[in-house]
């Protein structure tokens, strides 16, 4: 299991379109990916668009991303980079 934390910089937070790119990016990942905002006690399966959207992640929120599965070592750094590039 791999985990990283990331604080959202995008002023709109993770709204519909960014959530869409995230889901698309994760579709080829075999591991399960969970996204959580611990401060708000919310978490969701990051591969499910509506679930991610319902978290309504805002600018400044710190998200904890957990990757768990066979390809976790390979994809975790890529996913972390993806968050930095997009959110």
């Amino acid at each position, binding site marked *: 299991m791999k985990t990283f934390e990331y604080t959202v910089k995008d002023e709109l937070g993770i709204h*519909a379109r960014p*959530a*869409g790119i995230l889901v698309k990016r994760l579709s080829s990942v075999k591991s399960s990916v969970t996204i959580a905002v611990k401060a708000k006690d919310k978490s969701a399966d990051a*591969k*499910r*668009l*509506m679930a991610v*959207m*319902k978290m*309504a992640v805002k600018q400044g929120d710190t998200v904890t991303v957990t990757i768990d599965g066979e390809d976790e070592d390979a994809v975790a750094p890529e996913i972390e980079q993806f968050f930095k590039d997009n959110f």
Partner: protein
Amino acid sequence: MIKGNGRPVYQGVAIGRIYVHTKARDVVNRKCTDIVKELERFEGARESARKELEALYDKTLNEIGEEQAGIIEVQSLFLDDLDYIEGIQDMIRQGSDAAFSVHEIGDAQASAFAALDDEYMKARATDIRDISDRLVRILTGADQGFRMDEPGIIVAEDLTPSETVALDKDKILAFVTRQGSSNSHTAILARVMNIPSLVLTDIDIDPSLNGRIIIVDGFAGNYYIDPDDATMKAMQDKKRSAGEYKASLESYRGRESVTRKGQKVSLFANIGSPDDIRYVIDGDAEGIGLLRSEFLYLGRDDFPTEDELFEAYRKVVEAMEGRKVVIRTLDIGADKKVDYFRLEPEENPALGYRGIRICLTQKDIFRTQLRAIYRASAYGRVAIMFPMIISLKEVEDIKTFCTEVVGELEAEGVRTSPVELGIMIETPAAALTSDILAQHVDFFSVGTNDLTQYTLAIDRQNEKLDGFYDAHHPALMRFLAMIAENAHKAGIWAGICGELAGDLSLTDEFLKMGYDELSVAPSRILELRKNVIESEV
């Protein structure tokens, strides 16, 4: 050949193919017998929806802009959402039919979004409903009416304002509805668009009508589906002579509307959106006597911004090139409901929270609108008119508020021009106190539709009452005479902007009463001008 009839709302003959416009909301809990096949049907619908959205995305991007296109993109993302898709597939596996499953899961997801404590995400509920409606339409085969590939005739139960907003108006040759009335939204739209239409018809609405030929005779109130050769020939002749009558009116284009004895009257147009400007120009109107603001609020899921309102008003004001444009402030409520206003259901909406009552209560809505109108005033000649007035106190409150708004704009350095402030006389209270009200406003415009409804206590949406309805009732004629007289005593002008203004049998009467302006559907101007020029008054 199937022959039937209804009430004509605009004269003329139209011949074309039928597009059945049905609503998707009558989704009933149906069971499916073959689960595998139903899952395939759902897959197929998903594919079709995806293709439709791709096309819509391109169209929106080109015609409207990136922001709106982004909304379409989000909707297509939902088509791949696991919670949504798996939820629907699970329901189908348990034996429900695809359309009902989509409807139920869509509703559940939309409600979950609507309950979120985040304005942006809340609004996404509409997107989920929209994509679900699209899938349901595809699955139930009820979507043909919404996209017209070639010009045709729309057959529907009735059309709501928000449904007509979405129609491609260039392609509509006529409307044929089962419900509605002479004053229903569809009828008003038909008159603005200058297309023969029938309401209250006996037509059997069925998807099998799609693509069949129909003739609409807006003179006799008849329609013919799959016409035989003789009928087709007769109707083509009728269409031609109607065209000739219309052509004969062309000699009145560009002429002054003045009677033989020299009495002048301004013939203005009623319109419902900036798109209608072309009908105003075609119709040769001398100004706009009623620009409805409702269109700006319909067919969307949140309030329009000041800039959006301003752009829409400015477009009309500029297009009129210095001719007067009377803008009516928002007249929503009653029969024109909009979800995001969150208006509570009322026992009696016609007597309820509507029109100026909303504006004077929710001042933020009113302020945005007035700021937009005053900003647009710099681009031409603008007058503002307020609906549903019943008292002097309202007029005073409105004027105080307008002064405040103008003051704000001046302080911000925004350019405005002088604007006439007038009121609609459409309640018996306003008519009876018109001598008092006239002291405080720049003009009156009589809204005969509502004035008649309130004076006669007849609901204009209830067709059962049509037999009791008398548009020429003496009570109304007395009111009309009194309103014009009181306006002139106070030195202000008076006009009529209800449907009655276009009643050719009353033109002489209105001229005798001294009305300064008649505002009608743009397509009626030339005919009315002919009547004025030939009048002996």
